[in-house]
């Protein structure tokens, strides 16, 4: 049974790494964020290949049930990465708001110019009509 789960993990890590590489290749994931996921994929791969590694770590930090090490570090990784994502998100939402405001101002300016131009046209037409009348 134990062979199965380790084989599964190895298969999963390999597929995961392939997906990440493919996403980067298709420009769906920026290189900047791919690095962490590639490292993560390799970490899982290494842990899957040599279960001894996990057992050593669990013995080192006094965890009786070795797979718990995976849960602890997996959870920590996810928490830290979500925090990182919300930091990026905050920065981007700030930028989007500023961009929206700038575009709104530019559109307002264009509309103003358009109105002024059409008014000027009306005035110059009236002048023309006056001149013709004279």
């Amino acid at each position, binding site marked *: 049974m134990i062979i199965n789960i380790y084989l599964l993990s190895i298969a999963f890590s390999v597929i995961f790494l392939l997906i990440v590489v493919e996403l980067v290749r298709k420009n769906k994931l920026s290189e900047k964020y791919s690095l962490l996921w590639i490292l993560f994929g390799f970490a899982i791969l290494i842990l899957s290949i040599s279960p001894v590694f996990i057992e050593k770590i669990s013995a080192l930090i006094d965890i009786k049930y070795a797979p718990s090490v995976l849960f602890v570090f997996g959870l920590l990784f996810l928490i830290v990465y979500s925090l990182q994502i919300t930091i990026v998100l905050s920065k981007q939402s700030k930028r989007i*708001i500023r961009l*929206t*405001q*700038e*575009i*709104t*101002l530019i*559109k*307002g300016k264009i509309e*103003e110019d358009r109105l002024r131009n059409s008014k000027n046209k009306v005035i110059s037409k009236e002048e023309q009509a006056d001149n013709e009348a004279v």
Partner: protein
Amino acid sequence: MSDMSAMDGQNIKILVIVPAFNEEKSISKVIRSLYESGHNVDMVVVDDGSYDNTSKVAEKNGVKVLKLPYNLGIGGAVQTGYLYAKENNYDIAIQLDGDGQHDPAYIGDLIAPLLSGRADMVIGSRYVKKTGYTSKLSRRIGMLFFSGLITLLTGNPIKDTTSGFRAVNRNILEYFADNYPEVDVLVRLHKKKFKVMEIPVEMKERQGGTSSITPLRSVYYMIKVSIVLLINSIRSGALS
């Protein structure tokens, strides 16, 4: 003193910023009452991505409209107005809600302390002295709580901390254009050594449309503000 006389003159440019979200029923009234108040001011309506005809109604009334493509929320909308004021070299900007609860007749009172240099920001307050405005008990408790918190943090006994009826001078206008602190305005301005004062105004019931305030949002808002204020006071404590 030559500066002061320039400030008193007609060449001082004042902009009234009116944030409006789905206010087609009340926006005409707001615009007309501003015209009728007879103040020599320009006006810009910031349509915060309304689904109704707020922009069209405002434009029909001959007012400059800045139409945001989607709803940014009150802070983002008002800041658009401050950006406009900054770029068009206004000396004073006044915030006036599009729902009609703020009376433009008070604009003179609001800008007087700015013109004389006694304040950098003037808040039109419901609670400075007895006015016609009555509000629910829950809301009053919230107000009292914030007022106490702000007084504690800034030493300035501001009573109506959430009033959207206020006037600012060029310095604060520029500051707001670059970073508009939605939640902790008063604390930030205090740290920047700006002078903030409150004057009494009468507020009316909203003239149409629906309020965005619900009990759940109020609770959320209270928690948000408290946390932000707390974090900021920790930060300032660490720095000083």
